[in-house]
């Protein structure tokens, strides 16, 4: 039924309310696309609540605006590289911001998560440290490695 799924950019357009009726309808009826869309909305919520402000140097801002202006006249698909870069930045920041408990974790957290993963319990998406869309043993390992890290980011 839903053979063709929406791309990340199309899903982001749905999230932003700028998608076509067809794409919006697909996102509402396709469970996989709906799940991806929910993830995007979750990231948006997290970023908004994080209240992170990044100052962009004027030179870079002017270059981007000038580039966007030139590309706007070049064709309707010219925004794709810029949107892709923005989506990548969005994802990286979201992953960084989404780390649970701000790295204040220990082995007991890893153990508790391992037990929940093992029992098949529903686990909060914030524990998806690897960003692969599922919370599994890889995320448990990630917490455990963080717990034993000697770097200043550790929990000592």
């Amino acid at each position, binding site marked *: 039924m839903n053979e063709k799924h929406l791309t990340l950019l199309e899903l982001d357009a749905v999230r932003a309310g700028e998608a076509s009726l067809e794409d919006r309808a697909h996102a509402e009826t396709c469970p996989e696309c709906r799940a991806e869309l929910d993830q995007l909305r979750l990231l948006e919520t997290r970023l908004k609540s994080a209240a992170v402000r990044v100052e962009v140097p004027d030179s870079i801002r002017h270059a981007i605006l000038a580039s966007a202006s030139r590309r706007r006249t070049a064709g309707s698909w010219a925004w794709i590289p810029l949107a892709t870069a923005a989506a990548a930045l969005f994802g990286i920041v979201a992953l960084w911001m989404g780390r649970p408990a701000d790295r204040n974790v220990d*082995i007991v957290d890893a153990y508790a998560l391992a037990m929940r993963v093992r029992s098949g319990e529903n686990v909060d998406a914030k524990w998806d440290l690897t960003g692969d869309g599922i919370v599994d043993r890889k995320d448990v390992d990630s917490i*455990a490695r963080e717990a034993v890290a*000697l770097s200043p980011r550790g929990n000592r």
Partner: protein
Amino acid sequence: MRFALLPIFLLGLCASAQDEAQTRFTAYDVVVDAGAATLAAYQVEITAGPESKIVGVEGGEKPYADAPYYDPAALQGGRIILAAFTTEPGAPTGKVRVARVHFQETGTAKYTARVMAAAAAGGERIEAQVALVQTGGK
């Protein structure tokens, strides 16, 4: 002049032999005592004095037979954090040999160990003690 460098050469030989005699390898078992509680997870920190370097880590007894989590950056250094857990039923109680750490010592080495976190089966945090037990060396 022909033998002028001979004393220096002999001194060098003596110093080298002395270094070899002072450098030795030793291993300590890391034993965590959870008392009456089960030990389903532990995290301990081990610190060595300047006369000792960490050169290896291995597991202990079941269910902690696999090498624990640790930061590879700890090797060749004097501080390490070890951690492991088991989700299998029947976690052990009492004193459990959870890991073995190998050191290279160049003098009279001193070690300290402390439990950073421990949990019983089910996830309840517990108080536990840790001891380092020398197992031998050469």
